[in-house]
């Protein structure tokens, strides 16, 4: 009886009032949760109902791709961000409705699945907003991944393309800029405990009018970051790349007409949808599954389960991530579901269907299932600055279930490949350079990851990051001119740190860094995989090892080199085990290190990792094992113990019969030690995760989720997940030390 039912006229008035007086245009779930291309516009429907000239479409597509490539190259040549120099960028074109149709052919492919979200936001909210509007000569900037994107280090410049007064397309340029004013330098703060620690959080807003950047807004942005030069230069670089692209598009419009461009952009999307449906339909109906376990929040070690099931039925594919870890409300490693889908997309286009046109339509036929408030579908209020932890896994783990669906096909779109290394294993840096400038960014070593083994050959060493096959390592000399980091012994492949297999993985390399000529400099690292192997194997191979962060502190390596130039070998294993520098402190740590100031000449050492191995080690050609020794990739012990090869240690000539005997003996030993599966499971499976391991995610039932909240294990229903709160690691350590102190003093000592 207390229900109020206003008359319909009043209701309409109220609805209008509410729609016109919105308090805050936050991220729109209706936009961000829809990864599919939109329906045809009336104009597209009209044009596509008529005969389409495939030759003209092909010609226009070629011209557009060439123009995109030109824009991409312009940014690589002119960009100030380290990311721009190595190719961590993209230039793209969209339909008038904001569906991304094409990207530059050597741009970062992941951007093809996310750069459209902010444009859809602009179209929905700013077009008719009297204080904003969308007009010729406007340009919009954006970086907050909650409005669409990979992560907040990436900044975009988006521009509408008008022809005869009508909006016909959108153009954009996106670059991994790095520094964004976050609580740690470089834009990817592991220390962020709330989204307000993340630095710049730009929803799409207009920063360009009449083709010129508004200096007042640019000044505001420069004032919000550590590196105002970078912010200034790259806003201009992106704008001018987009303006060049605009010039090219105007020529295409003049030569071929707007109809040809509209048809080409839309048809490119629809053709891809049709092709992906066909590719799904040729897979077997069924479900394949994989689990992955990042082992760190970057503040503490925790096992964070990612649970993936891929189901094919006819021409539908569903990726089910339910059962994954809950979100963590005071750690920065959450991701929103649009960013997660974006990186799954990257994995498909890098490892599974690399021949497809790179556009958002690839995932249109796919459905997704997530638990709300999980690590991979984090709520908008969670910090997400180091979302790379789940996102890097997203780019690799689908290799395994997709290989199990696709291996049987009579033809392949690319070679079957085991997952590549999937950690952003690079030093992030910040401070004052030798040139007196404040900077914060990360090293290009992130691009040097080892590939997984393949069905027909070994993985490539240090080939690329999982997000872009075309990214480069950049020029070390150029880097050393601009920042005080000095590389000592870089690019040495990590001997014996391999994903072993019939076809071994590619390897990463050792990074040994120090700095000089700066009074204020520091490092951070944001990786997991120091306790639990990061890269997973395929078809009976082995994964990657675990990788620690190593430090040599309390010395100045430049002084030591003057004293003892012959005695120091820049090899992590040799330095740490032999400890040739007197008075130094040698230590290992997990690779989640928040920013710390260093002293000049101290060493920070880490590795780019190996991918997963492919196939049984006993099936590896013994001659290939000897080649690995010759190339100093593995030791003699590895050849004998892992690959079971008998050989002459001097000549490295394989003893074929001896190898056969060793391998046959190992096969017999396997059979003898193996336990039938059912009996094994009875003995192995525990009802809950190990008590001593902080574990987050499902165990035996995806509907029941374990977590760690304020230091205690909790259990939740998957459809009612609540964010977990982690204790401050320093508080935990202080409490442990106090306990130890109390025990050492004796129980009778009064507490503080």
């Amino acid at each position: 009886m207390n229900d109020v039912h206003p008359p319909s006229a009043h209701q309409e008035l109220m609805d209008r009032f509410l729609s016109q007086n919105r308090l805050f245009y936050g991220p729109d779930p209706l936009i961000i949760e829809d990864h599919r291309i939109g329906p045809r516009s009336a104009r597209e429907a009209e044009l596509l109902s008529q005969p389409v000239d495939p030759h003209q479409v092909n010609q226009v597509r070629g011209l557009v791709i060439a123009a995109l490539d030109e824009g991409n190259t312009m940014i690589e040549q002119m960009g100030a961000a380290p990311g721009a120099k190595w190719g961590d960028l993209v230039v793209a074109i969209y339909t008038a409705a904001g569906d991304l149709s094409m990207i530059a052919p050597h741009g970062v492919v992941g951007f093809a699945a996310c750069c459209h979200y902010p444009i859809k936001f602009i179209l929905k909210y700013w077009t008719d907003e009297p204080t904003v509007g969308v007009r010729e000569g406007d340009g919009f900037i954006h970086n907050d991944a909650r409005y669409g994107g990979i992560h907040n280090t990436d900044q975009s410049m988006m521009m509408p393309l008008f022809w005869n007064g009508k909006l016909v397309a959108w153009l954009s340029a996106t670059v991994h800029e790095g520094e964004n004013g976050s609580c740690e330098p470089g834009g990817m703060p592991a220390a962020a405990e709330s989204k307000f620690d993340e630095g710049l959080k730009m929803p799409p807003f207009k920063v360009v009018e009449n083709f010129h950047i508004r200096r007042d807004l640019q000044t505001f942005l420069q004032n919000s970051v550590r590196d105002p030069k970078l912010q200034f230069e790259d806003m201009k670089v992106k704008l001018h790349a987009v303006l060049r692209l605009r010039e090219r598009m105007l020529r295409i419009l003049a030569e071929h007409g707007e109809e040809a461009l509209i048809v080409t952009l839309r048809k490119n999307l629809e053709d891809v949808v049709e092709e992906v449906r066909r590719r799904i339909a040729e897979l077997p109906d069924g479900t394949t599954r994989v689990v992955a376990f990042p082992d760190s929040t970057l503040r503490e070690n925790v096992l964070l389960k990612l649970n993936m099931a891929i189901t094919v039925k006819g021409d539908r594919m569903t990726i089910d991530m339910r059962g994954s870890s809950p979100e963590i409300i005071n750690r920065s490693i959450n991701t929103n579901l649009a960013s997660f889908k974006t990186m799954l997309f990257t994995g498909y286009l890098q490892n599974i269907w690399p021949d497809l046109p790179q556009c958002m339509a690839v995932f249109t036929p796919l459905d997704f299932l997530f638990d709300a408030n999980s690590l991979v579908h984090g709520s908008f209020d969670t910090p997400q600055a180091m979302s790379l932890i789940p996102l890097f896994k997203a780019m690799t783990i689908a290799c395994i279930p997709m290989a199990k669906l696709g291996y049987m096909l009579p033809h392949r779109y690319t070679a079957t490949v085991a997952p590549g290394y999937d950690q952003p294993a690079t030093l992030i840096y910040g401070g004052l350079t030798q040139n007196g400038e404040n900077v914060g960014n990360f090293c290009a070593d992130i691009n040097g990851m080892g590939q997984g083994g393949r069905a027909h050959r070994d993985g490539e060493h240090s080939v690329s990051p999982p997000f872009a096959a075309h990214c480069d390592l950049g020029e070390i000399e150029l880097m050393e001119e601009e920042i005080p980091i000095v590389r000592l012994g870089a690019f040495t492949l990590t001997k014996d740190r391999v994903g072993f297999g019939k076809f071994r993985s590619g390897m990463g390399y050792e990074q040994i860094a120090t700095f000089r000529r700066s009074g204020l400099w520091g490092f951070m690292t944001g990786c997991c995989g120091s306790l639990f192997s990061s890269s997973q194997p395929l078809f009976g191979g082995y994964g990657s090892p675990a990788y620690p962060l190593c430090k040599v502190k309390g010395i100045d390596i430049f002084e030591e080199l003057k004293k003892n130039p012959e005695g120091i070998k820049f090899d992590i294993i040799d330095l740490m085990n032999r400890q040739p520098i007197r008075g130094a402190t040698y230590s290992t740590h997990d690779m989640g290190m928040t920013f710390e100031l260093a002293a000049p000449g101290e060493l920070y050492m880490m590795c780019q990792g190996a991918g997963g191995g492919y196939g049984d080690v006993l099936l590896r050609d013994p001659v290939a094992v000897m080649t690995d020794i010759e190339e100093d990739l593995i030791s003699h012990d590895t050849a004998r113990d892992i690959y079971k090869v008998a050989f002459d240690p001097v000549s490295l000539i394989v003893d074929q019969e001896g190898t056969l005997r060793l391998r046959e003996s190992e096969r017999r030993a396997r059979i003898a030690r193996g336990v039938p599966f059912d009996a094994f499971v009875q003995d192995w499976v525990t009802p809950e995760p190990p008590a001593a391991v902080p574990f987050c995610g499902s165990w035996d039932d995806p509907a029941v989720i374990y977590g760690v909240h304020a230091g205690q294990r909790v259990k939740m229903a998957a459809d009612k997940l609540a964010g977990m709160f982690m204790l401050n690691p320093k508080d935990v350590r202080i409490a442990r030390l106090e306990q130890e102190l109390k025990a050492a003093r004796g129980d009778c000592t009064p507490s503080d």
Partner: protein
Amino acid sequence: MKVLVTENLRIDLDSESWECRHCGKVLIGARENYKRGLVVYDRDPRQIHKPLLDPVKFKLTFAPDPDWCRILEYYCPQCGTMMETEYLPPGHPPVRDIEFDIDALKAQWRHRPELSEAPVGREPPRRQSHDHSSHTPESRK
């Protein structure tokens, strides 16, 4: 009709059974979890990814922590080929990684030719060399 499913496994659609591709051993019915036809070993990861740093000096050594990570090795019970490996926390239920609709599979393969070897597939195009000559003004002339 036999369908190749992995590097090591195939399904005989006529007899509806999983088989080892290396020795032909019939493992278990195709509608079952193939792992039930294999034998398993709980491997300490330090035996494969050996400590490269001195464990007396350092806790972290490049070897995974055996209290956090184990390797389940699945072997063919007849020929001893390692068919699959799984990296799991201790006690975690093994994943049922492949579960096909066998009736649909039969229908799908009715008109496909049988394969005895899997095709390799094309690799994506790559630059033939890694240099920066294309970045220099001279190369653009």
